């Protein structure tokens, strides 16, 4: 950033933000406001001006004031305070940053947040039920020991949910092919396939 010194984008620390957001009931609309002056939405003719971006993240409305260079990944992690989505390579090669945008899996590192204005984003934080019951895919990853270090796991889980929803998890070969965009340096692949198999059957029964 050349013109904007690094600053807390909300005027509050991430930790403070997290404690505030955690204390809000899940149904309460949460609007994150920037400490920076409001900027024109969508178009930013001045490269140094911030852009206002509105989107829904895990069914909560967010308004963020962002440098247009901010990727969706950095917006989620550094501006919305949702650090469940991980930055691996930051170049579209590893899949750690996978989230759902309007129900489809995408790489949040490969798109500018301003391009997703109006989108519905789902991250790993949005999967569990309000009472804390894990999503069947999250539970299946635990049941099958489908990770070691866990860094790729949020991306694996988001990608796996999409893989099942797309109908591309019928066979182990399909699962392997359609999960090939998510790398696991611990090589937990056999257990990831087993977890997806388990969750697939549970999701289909439900």
């Amino acid at each position, binding site marked *: 950033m*050349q*013109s904007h010194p690094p600053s807390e984008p909300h005027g509050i620390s991430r930790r403070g933000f997290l404690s505030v957001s955690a204390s809000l009931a899940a149904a309460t609309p949460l609007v994150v406001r920037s400490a920076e002056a409001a900027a024109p939405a*969508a*178009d*930013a*003719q*001045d*490269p*140094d001006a911030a*852009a206002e971006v509105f989107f829904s993240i895990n069914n909560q409305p967010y308004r963020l004031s962002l*440098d*247009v*260079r901010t*990727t969706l990944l950095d917006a989620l992690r550094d501006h919305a305070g949702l650090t469940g989505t991980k930055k691996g390579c*930051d*170049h*579209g090669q590893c*899949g750690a940053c*996978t989230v759902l945008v309007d129900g*489809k*899996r*995408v*790489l949040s*590192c*490969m*798109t*500018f947040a*301003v*391009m997703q*204005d109006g989108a519905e984003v789902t991250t790993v934080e949005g999967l569990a039920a309000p009472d804390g019951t894990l999503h069947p895919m999250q539970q299946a990853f635990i049941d099958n020991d489908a990770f070691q270090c866990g860094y790729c796991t949020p991306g694996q889980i988001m*990608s796996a949910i*999409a*893989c099942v929803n*797309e109908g*591309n998890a019928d066979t182990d070969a399909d699962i*392997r*092919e*359609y999960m*090939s*965009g*998510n790398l696991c340096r611990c090589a937990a692949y056999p257990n990831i396939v087993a977890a997806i198999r388990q969750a697939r059957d549970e999701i289909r029964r439900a």
Partner: protein
Amino acid sequence: MRPFAYERAQSAEAALGAVSGTSADAGQPTRAEAQYIAGGTNMTDYMKLGVARPAKLIDVNRLQDPALRRIEFDDSGLRFGALVRMSEAEKHPDVKRRLPVIAQSLMLAASPQIRNMASLAGNVLQRTRCEYFREITWPCNKREPGSGCSALDGVNRQHAVLGVSDACIATYHGDFAQALIALDASLELVGGRGRRSIPFAELHRLPGDTPHIETALSPDEMITAIVVQAPPWAARSTYLKIRDRQSYAFSLASAAVALDMDGDTVREARVALGGLATVPWRAREAEAALQGKRLDEDTARAAAGAAFADARPREHNAFKIALGQETLVRALIETRDMEI
């Protein structure tokens, strides 16, 4: 990353207007100050690396013309709107049935996440992943004209053996483009001078002495549609891709094949090769070698030999000649044996 102005265009005319007045850098679209962005999977990567440095990004994802998001088909062929995503085209039942080589080339091209994001027009305009092009501290004639080619005597295992020059051996890595060039596709374009149509084969330029000039587009032009003829025999078509790992990698060698057969005899063959050349590569010598012949292992091998007669390997990529030939032979036999 260089700061940029961001504009969201609602119409092609507005997008063209946003480009006008910006520096075009001597007619090289890839170096123009204003760049269109759709899926962004290539552009964001190269902006982070400093390879692409636009002063203005024009987001074309919300252009309102619904034809840009549509796959239309009639008796003669298919028309893909420029903003159709790879994953939408690959699972379209008419694409799978009438032009399997296209569906397969898309399916094998990238991860599901990237295929959900990347537009078809952006895909054909993707830029090389030559390691020396990607890393801005190395000399590269494509990135910095006249600076030299680091790949010629560098680590060039991934590099091209066909269509190379003394200035550049960077591989064109796309898969979809191989299916398009094999099927004589055409492109619909819009620009400041109006609308025009060009054969897909004229989109990409051989590197020659000017590897920085990559396409025949003017800086303000954008692709609005990709049109592919779909004669009944094109249902007999295949895309075979050979990689270092089973999935989600660029090809070391690939072949797009479509065959018009009269019994065992080839009436007409369409052959393109990927991962081996500097541009999407139509192997017309292989096609000529097959025409009117009975397609068997021997004639397939002769055609594969013809395809690589002019290959120019460097230190680490000579293996691609044998690999490319074997890939083509297998693709020809598998396509012959398809039941349609």
